[in-house]
C-alpha cells in the first residue's frame, strides 16, 4: 500500500488574498511540494499533464526528472499522462529515459483528458477518446516489450521495424495505471493487460467508484492475471487538515466555495458527504480513508489532492506536515511497516508540525 499526493498543476488565484502565483512560482512550488512529500514520508508524488491555461504542467517528464534529481526515495508518477493526444512513441521514449535516470523510481498513469479544445491542437478529436486510448496504448505496450515493431493503426503514421530507445531499464516496462472517472472501457483495458486501475474518486459519489472498481477486479480475474482481490487498484482522495475540525473547515471554506471544478455549487458539508472530500483533523482523515476499503477492497495506492484551488505554497507545505501524520497512522492501522528507507530529513521533520 502506497500513499502519496497528486497535482494537476493549476494556476489559480487565492480567493482570500486575490493573489495569483506566476507560472514560475507554480512550477517551482510543485518541486518544493514534492521534496516536502518525501520529507514527511510519503511514497508517491504524481504530476499532471495539461496543455491549456490555467495549467502549467505541459511537460511532466521534465518536472519529474528535476524532482527525481532532488529526491532519493519518493516514487514519481503522473496524474495523468495523456494517452490520447501524446504520440505513444514519445511516451515510450520519454518515460523509458526517465526510468533510467530515476533508477526505476517511477511509474505512470494514463488518462484521456476531458478538455475538448485540446484534442484538435494535436490533430485529434475528443469523440475518438476511447479508441485513441485503446490503440495508442496497444502500441506503447508493444514498444516497451518488442525490439522491432511493425505497426499500422488508425491514428498515427505506420512503423516498420521500429525500435523505441532507450529500452526499458532491465528489460522491464514501467508500471502503468489506467485512470478513469466513469468509462468501463478503461477499466476493461486495465484488466486486459493486468495493469493498475486508478479511480479518480474525488468528484463522484462512492457508489460509482465501487462499481467501477468491482468491474475492474472481475475482469482482471477473467483475463487470468490473478484473483479479483489481488487486482491493482488506486484511489484518489481530497483532504484539508487542521488541528481542530472547525479550524480546517474555516480555513478551507473560501477555497472550496471558489474552486474551479465544483465552486459555487454544493456546500462544503454536502460535498463532503457526497464525495471522499474530508476536511478535519488527522484522526478524521484517517478514519474516512480507512472507510474507502469497505467498498474498494484492499487497494494498493492512495493519492491525495492537496495543492489546488489557489491554496498558497506555505499552506500546502503545512498540510503536508499533517498529511505525514495521517499516513503514519494509516500505516499503523493497516499493519504496514513505516517507510523502509527514511531520509534523515524525514525523521527530523516528524515532530516539526
Amino acid at each position, binding site marked *: 500500500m502506497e500513499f502519496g499526493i497528486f497535482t494537476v498543476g493549476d494556476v489559480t488565484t487565492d480567493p482570500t488574498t486575490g493573489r495569483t502565483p506566476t507560472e514560475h512560482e507554480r512550477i517551482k512550488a510543485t518541486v518544493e511540494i514534492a521534496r516536502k512529500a518525501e520529507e514527511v514520508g510519503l511514497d508517491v508524488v504524481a504530476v499532471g499533464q495539461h496543455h491549456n491555461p490555467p495549467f502549467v504542467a505541459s511537460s511532466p517528464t521534465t518536472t519529474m526528472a528535476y524532482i527525481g534529481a532532488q529526491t532519493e526515495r519518493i516514487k514519481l508518477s503522473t496524474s495523468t499522462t495523456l494517452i490520447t493526444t501524446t504520440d505513444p512513441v514519445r511516451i515510450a521514449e520519454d518515460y523509458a529515459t526517465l526510468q533510467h535516470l530515476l533508477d526505476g523510481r517511477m511509474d505512470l498513469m494514463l488518462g484521456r483528458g476531458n478538455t475538448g479544445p485540446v484534442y484538435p491542437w494535436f490533430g485529434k478529436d475528443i469523440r475518438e477518446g476511447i*479508441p485513441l486510448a485503446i490503440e495508442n496504448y496497444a502500441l506503447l505496450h508493444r514498444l516497451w516489450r518488442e525490439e522491432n515493431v511493425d505497426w499500422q*493503426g488508425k491514428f498515427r503514421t505506420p512503423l516498420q521495424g521500429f525500435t523505441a530507445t532507450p529500452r526499458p531499464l532491465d528489460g522491464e516496462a514501467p508500471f502503468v495505471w489506467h485512470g478513469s472517472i466513469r468509462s468501463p472501457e478503461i477499466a*476493461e483495458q486495465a484488466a486486459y493487460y493486468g495493469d493498475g486501475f486508478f479511480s479518480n474518486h474525488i468528484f463522484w459519489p462512492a457508489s460509482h467508484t465501487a462499481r467501477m472498481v468491482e468491474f475492474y477486479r472481475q475482469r482482471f480475474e477473467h483475463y487470468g492475471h490473478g484473483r479479483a482481490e489481488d487486482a491493482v487498484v488506486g484511489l484518489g482522495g481530497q483532504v484539508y487538515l487542521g488541528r481542530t475540525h472547525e479550524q480546517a473547515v474555516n480555513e478551507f471554506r473560501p477555497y472550496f466555495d471558489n474552486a474551479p471544478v465544483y465552486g459555487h455549487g454544493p456546500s462544503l458539508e454536502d460535498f463532503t458527504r457526497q464525495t471522499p472530500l474530508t476536511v478535519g483533523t488527522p484522526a478524521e482523515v484517517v478514519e474516512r480513508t480507512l472507510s474507502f476499503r469497505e467498498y474498494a477492497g484492499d487497494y494498493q495506492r492512495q493519492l491525495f489532492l492537496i495543492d489546488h484551488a489557489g491554496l498558497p505554497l506555505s499552506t500546502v507545505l503545512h498540510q503536508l506536515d499533517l498529511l505525514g501524520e495521517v499516513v503514519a497512522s494509516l500505516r499503523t492501522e493497516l499493519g504496514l511497516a513505516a517507510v523502509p528507507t527514511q531520509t534523515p530529513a524525514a525523521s527530523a521533520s516528524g515532530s516539526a508540525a
Partner: protein
Amino acid sequence: MSDPIPFRRTSPGAPGGAGRAVDVRRVVVVSAGLSDPSSTKLLADLLAEATTRVATERGAVVEVQHVELRALAHGLTDALLTGFASGEVATAQAQVAAADAVVAVTPVFSASYSGLFKTFFDVLERGTLDGVPVLVAATAGTARHSLVLDHALRPLFSYLHAAVLPTGVFAASEDWARGGADSALRTRIDRAAGELVDRLVGPRAQAERLDQFDRDVAAMGSFEDLLGG
C-alpha cells in the same frame, strides 16, 4: 460479442415488479410549478387522479409518485455543477428510472418549458426514459402558448427516446372555471389518461432499462473488438 461481460444493476428501484402478488404499475408525475397553489400542480394532480381512476375501471393497479421540482431547485443546480446527483435529486431520478410511465407538467416561461423543468431532464442520466410512455402537459396564462406542447415538449422527449403519447394536455387560465377544470379540459385530461393507461395495461415494452454504466458495458463488446477498432 464473443466475450461474456458480466454486469449487474445497482441503481435503486429496479423496475419489473418481479415477485409482486399484484402487478402494480408505477407512474411518476414530474411537475415544475413554482407558486402555491400552482395551476401546474393542480393539472398534475388532475392527470394523476384521472390515470388512477381509469386504471381502476380497467382492473389495473397504479401507484402514483409525485416529484415536485421546486423543492429540488438547489440540488438540481448542484448536480449541473458537480456532474452527479445526490440526496432528493438522486431519489427523484431513481423514481423516474423505475417508472412504467411519466407525466411531465411544466408552466410556460418565455414561450417554452421552464428552466427548472429542463434542468431536471438535463441532469437525468442518458437512457433513463428510453421507450417510456410520457404524457406531456403545460399551463400558461393564455391559450396563445398552447403549441408549446408540440414545439418544445415533444422534441425534448423525442430526443430522450421517450414514447410521447399522442394527446398532450394544455391548460390556460381560461380553462380553469371557478376554481376547477372546465368540462373541455376534463375531457382532454381523461383522453390523455386513457392513452396512458392503454400503455400501462399492455405488455411491458421492456423488462428492464439499463443505466449508463450498464449500457456502456453492454455496448463495449470484447476487448479484442475494441483493439480491432
